[in-house]
């Protein structure tokens, strides 16, 4: 069970997409895991053969639990099918625990104590024995039952059934990540006005004779501009883990995507710096469609190295981003609007936006941040060069 973000503690295996004995290749999607952020596709990272699943369908397991046994190519073969030797003993999964009442162990803190290190105290709600029994009998995940104000789950709550939408889980995941960000990351903020005439003209010119499915949107240009600026200022791409910054050579840019009233998620577009605009545009459309449908890949959630959030054309002038840990920077692009602008000594009307940067002071300073933000602006003045 991979960790799909610092705020994730467990996940439920909801689909096994291949059966034991199947060859797998790096990048294949082999499973789907249900998390607070939705259904996540699990990729395999090596070539080999799936020997067996180690986790049953519907089972919720902590992060770090092996999901499947994959025999890499070149590893000693297991007996061939025609060989009547018995299969090697399957690693015994611990027997499914009986739905016994949970002993009031120390892991269940009194509900009135603040719990800064436990993102989801309410997920550890105390369920009554009858509630647990009913949940186990009817196959209901107790994690999906809303606890009462006193932190308990009773028989009637299980009877009432799981929460209907994924919304409370999503909101909890956002709350945990953002609270951790505000608690741990000393943010500094910068802002800069940018003239988007060149971007708008380039997009209009490019799209004039293109079919809708081949049209560019300014967001693709913003992504390339950020990747271009990262080449010169790489300290804004990476992660801060255990007191040290780990830079990333690649620009895996998380794109903040609004989920129509259900929340927000920022899955990554990979290697933005090395892709052309058309490729990026089609990948972005695909990513947004899959994200809104609740299907993204594990890597897309965990491997972003910086976030870009664009308010689009119905927002406000600018935003102050909250860094998604363990990343160390977030770039914001406000809604462009016509504004007075001085060009060649004259005041003219231009489409102007406010670029913002929130960055981690443990890793960089405002001076470098300012240069990075200006570099994004500079790239936006020559979109044809992206």
């Amino acid at each position, binding site marked *: 069970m991979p960790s799909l973000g610092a705020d994730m503690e467990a996940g439920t295996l909801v689909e096994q997409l291949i059966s034991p004995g199947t060859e797998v290749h790096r990048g294949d999607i082999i499973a789907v895991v249900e998390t607070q952020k939705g259904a996540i596709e699990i990729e395999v990272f090596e070539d080999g053969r799936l020997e067996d699943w180690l986790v049953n369908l519907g089972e919720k397991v902590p992060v770090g639990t092996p999901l499947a046994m994959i025999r890499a190519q070149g590893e000693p073969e297991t007996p061939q099918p025609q060989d009547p030797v018995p299969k090697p003993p399957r690693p015994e999964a611990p027997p499914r625990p009986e739905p016994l009442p949970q002993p009031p162990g120390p892991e269940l803190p009194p509900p009135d104590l603040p719990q800064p290190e436990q993102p989801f105290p309410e997920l550890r709600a105390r369920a009554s024995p009858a509630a647990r029994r009913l949940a186990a009998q009817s196959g209901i995940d107790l994690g999906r039952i809303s606890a009462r104000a006193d932190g308990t789950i009773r028989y009637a709550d299980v009877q009432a059934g799981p929460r209907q939408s994924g919304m409370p889980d999503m909101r909890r995941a956002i709350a945990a990540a953002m609270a951790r960000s505000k608690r741990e990351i000393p943010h500094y903020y910068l802002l800069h006005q940018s003239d988007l005439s060149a971007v708008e003209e380039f997009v*209009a010119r490019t799209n004039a004779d293109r079919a809708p499915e081949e049209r560019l949107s300014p967001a693709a240009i913003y992504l390339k501009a950020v990747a271009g600026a990262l080449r010169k200022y790489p300290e804004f791409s990476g992660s801060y883990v255990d007191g040290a910054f780990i830079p990333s050579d690649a620009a895996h840019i998380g794109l903040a995507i609004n989920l*129509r009233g259900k929340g927000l998620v920022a899955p990554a577009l990979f290697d933005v710096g090395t892709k052309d605009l058309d490729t990026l545009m089609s990948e972005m*459309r695909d990513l947004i469609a899959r994200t809104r449908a609740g299907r993204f890949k594990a890597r897309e959630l965990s491997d972003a190295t910086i976030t870009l959030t664009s308010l689009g054309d119905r927002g406000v002038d600018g935003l102050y981003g909250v860094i998604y840990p363990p990343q160390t920077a977030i770039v914001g692009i406000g809604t462009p609007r016509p504004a007075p602008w001085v060009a060649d000594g004259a005041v003219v009307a231009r489409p102007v936006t406010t670029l913002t940067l929130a960055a981690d002071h443990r890793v960089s300073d405002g001076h470098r941040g300012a240069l990075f933000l200006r570099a994004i602006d500079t790239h936006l003045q020559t979109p044809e060069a992206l």
Partner: protein
Amino acid sequence: MTQEEIETALIAELSRIAPDIDLEDVDRGHDLREEFDIDSIDFLNLVTALGKRFGLDMPEADYPQMDTFDHLHAYLVAKSG
């Protein structure tokens, strides 16, 4: 295609993009993106879908004629009729 058929198709594409919006609550003479809470990528997806369905180019230069539900409907009627 009749006006009613075009309207049905338009409603179908819009509800695919904005499934949470009830058409009853929508002011058809007001800004389409506001009413359906759709961003520029959603709008591009809408134009892509409608363009395919009706065999139209729907160039960006015509976007101002698609600013409300009623205008977009009238545009589709005029171009595909």
